[in-house]
């Protein structure tokens, strides 16, 4: 699916990256602890999180994550959005909860990728 599909499924507001919404994503990862995110590597993935700080964006940078969805209506500080913009990472925000957001995306066909112990 594309980031635009995610935006529609979760009724997101686009905080940055309006013109990049047609980018494709294949996998998703939902977590509030950044090392749990860093344990998971997949290309073209989206990060769904309630953690709204600069380290969320840095984690996404290290992993080449395409898009971050902030759940529970959280809106990051300007510096967080600026860092994402500098690195071409799309930022969406939804009022939905983590569980609902992940469930909807999973139901719509996004996969969780593989856990590191699977081959």
């Amino acid at each position, binding site marked *: 699916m594309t980031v635009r599909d995610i935006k529609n499924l979760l009724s997101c507001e686009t905080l940055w990256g309006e013109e990049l919404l047609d980018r494709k994503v294949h996998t998703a990862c939902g977590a509030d602890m950044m*090392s*749990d995110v*860093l344990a998971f*590597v997949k290309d073209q993935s989206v990060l769904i999180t309630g*953690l709204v*700080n600069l*380290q969320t964006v*840095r984690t996404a940078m*290290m992993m080449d994550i395409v898009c971050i969805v902030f759940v529970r209506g959280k809106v990051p500080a300007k510096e967080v959005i600026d860092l994402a913009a500098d690195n071409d990472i799309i930022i969406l925000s939804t009022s939905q909860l983590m569980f609902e957001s992940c469930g909807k995306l999973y139901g719509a066909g996004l996969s969780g990728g593989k856990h*590191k112990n699977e081959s």
Partner: protein
Amino acid sequence: MNLNFTYDVDSEDFTRAGEASADIKKKLKKMNVPHEAVRKVAIAMYEGEINMVIHANGGVITVSVNEDSITMVLADKGPGIPDVEKAMQEGFSTAPDNIRALGFGAGMGLPNMKKYTDEMHIDTEIGVGTTVTMKVNI
């Protein structure tokens, strides 16, 4: 080719943690190091950099880039790690609640560093500091 980069990692400002790793990632990309190797280095170094900031009051990171490998040495003068074997276990963390609120303290950093690198060695002494050496083959 043999290039070396050195970074001072400051622990005063948590918002800056990860800047060194982000910079190395950009440099390696520019040097046309293969994508997979760049990502492994970036993730392992970022975990190590964060550890230096939250557990050891900062330190110094040196990165050496050769044709066939990238070596990272993260040296701090922090409290040291009392039981390295335990620290390496998934889920083991001594991070306090204020650090967990910042998104760290899952106890996955050291296991991730091991997983993404081809070699990893921890040298540590209580009250003296910790040096983590990691190597990623290209």
